[in-house]
């Protein structure tokens, strides 16, 4: 049981007039090896939820289990040592480009590994590897992170978490504000990371990405889990009630279906899989 939420609620500013219930009675499980999408309308509690994975937030009620770590509302049951947990769960925040601070890119990326006990050389080696993985070559290593473009900064920040080699990688809206090509590269990177054995949890508003990349999806609405399923099953239903949009591909397939084509929705993932089905239908 890698990650498990048991009846988790979270309330911001409890006991003041600004009190705000962000999560209510969340029950969910995340298995090892999943590429999980966490979706839902703005303000539904996604970012709040992922911060529980890292013990940055402690539940107001209920318990979160992350492997052997217990993050509970009950102070006595809660594990105190967060260091090992944070090495295991790499969390990339929304707009991570604001967390850079070192003089050079490579030093900034090495910061995480160094904090988790690597010596300088090992940390720098890991940093270089992570930077190459996110698509930044040697020419970036010695530059100051402050003179990079927004997208490049974000890559550096993501490399900073990848360099820690986490078992779970949690990314909060990594593609927001990137150009389409950059977004695709970013997602291919996460697929790559996932294939090398990391469990990836992706928070996003882009349903095309969910369909194309994710193995599972959890829909949150007003702080509650309203659906846990495979992406294709989600889009079979009416998703506008959760303020979500059908992926373009599904819309397209649907109108083709109305014109007499038949599709097997279960294998629909991206443009090429749709094209394949169309071609096969024609041959029949």
């Amino acid at each position, binding site marked *: 049981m890698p990650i498990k939420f048991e009846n988790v609620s979270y309330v911001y500013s409890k*006991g*003041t*007039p*600004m009190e705000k219930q962000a999560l209510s009675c969340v029950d969910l499980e995340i298995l090892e090896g999943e590429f999980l999408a966490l979706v839902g309308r703005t303000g539904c509690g996604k970012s709040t939820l992922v*911060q529980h994975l*890292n013990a*940055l937030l402690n539940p107001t009620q209920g318990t979160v289990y992350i492997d052997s770590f217990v993050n509970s509302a009950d102070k006595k049951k809660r594990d105190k040592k*967060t*260091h090992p947990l*944070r*090495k295991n*769960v*790499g*969390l990339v*925040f929304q707009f*991570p480009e*604001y*967390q*850079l*601070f070192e003089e050079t890119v490579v030093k900034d990326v090495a*910061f*995480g590994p160094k*904090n*988790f006990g690597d010596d300088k050389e090992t940390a720098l080696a890991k940093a270089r590897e992570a930077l190459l993985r996110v698509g930044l070559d040697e020419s970036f290593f010695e530059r100051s992170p*402050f003179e990079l473009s927004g997208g490049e900064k974000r890559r550096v920040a993501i490399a*900073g*978490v990848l360099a*820690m080699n986490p078992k779970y990688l949690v990314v909060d809206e990594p593609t927001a504000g990137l150009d389409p090509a950059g977004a695709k590269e970013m997602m291919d990177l996460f697929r790559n990371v996932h294939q090398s054995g990391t469990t990836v949890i992706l928070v996003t508003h882009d349903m095309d990405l969910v369909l194309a990349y994710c193995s599972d999806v959890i829909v949150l609405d007003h702080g509650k889990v309203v659906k846990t399923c495979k992406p294709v099953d989600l889009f079979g239903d009416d998703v506008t009630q959760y303020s979500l949009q059908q992926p373009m591909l599904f819309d397209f397939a649907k109108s083709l279906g109305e014109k007499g084509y038949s599709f097997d929705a279960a294998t629909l993932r991206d443009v090429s899989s749709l094209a394949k089905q169309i071609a096969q239908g024609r041959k029949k």
Partner: protein
Amino acid sequence: MNNFALGKYVPYDTWVHRLDARVKIIAVIMLMVAVFFPLSTWSMTLLVQGTLLVLISVILACTKTPLHSILTSLRSLWVMVLFLLLIYILVPKAENTLGIAWSVNGWTVYWDSFAEAARIVVRLVMMIMLAMALTSSTKPLDLTYALQWYFTPLKVIRFPAEEFAMTISIALRFIPTLLEDALRVMRAQSSRGVDFAHGRLSKRIVGLTSLIVPLFVSSFIRSEELANAMECRCYDPRGKRTRYRKLRFHWGDLVAFLFAGAVMAGVIVLSALHVDLFALMGIVAL
């Protein structure tokens, strides 16, 4: 990280919240004067400061500030309290009204030293409580407007009251934003393994840099954006400005003002005339 009790406005709707900000400022100043006026004897000090402490606690309770938040802000002060106590005990004092606490080889410590230290601590607590009552019940913007109102007469000597108020209100406006930024960067760095609370000093300093540098960067970016936005809206520091929300003076404000004034006047009279109520009543006290 969330114990910034001082300076955080909490939007309740109590009578303290509804008071005019100008009155609240002047009332707080008057009560502070009352707190800091020395009295002739210890028994009078105990009586007057005790009454003030009760009064201020009641006011603070009226703003719905949880009283235990005072303890939180005091926690950071206990080093100072200890230090004070030490100084008062080590430095010999001539006056002896309360008797000798101990006398070792000519090193004599009177109970007065302890009383003195206690008095300072109690005063400090009252001051913090007053400041808390003010800031938790008044919107920062109302505070600046009130300050601006007080500074307006200084325009005669070319004091830039409006620019001053604008500067302060911008600064106040950005406190929560910067705090949020700080929390965000802190969370991000904690997930990269920084431990801000424990660990070796050198590590903690690195941790702190990882917090401060991004904060500086983002506040520079913000200030530039703000300056541009103000330019685009044709902000002119010398222009005449009108205001959407006006401060208004009500009867309740007058009552509060008179009450605080009376408290201050009372304490000043007691202090200046060396009145000893206990002696007047025929009770022999210390």
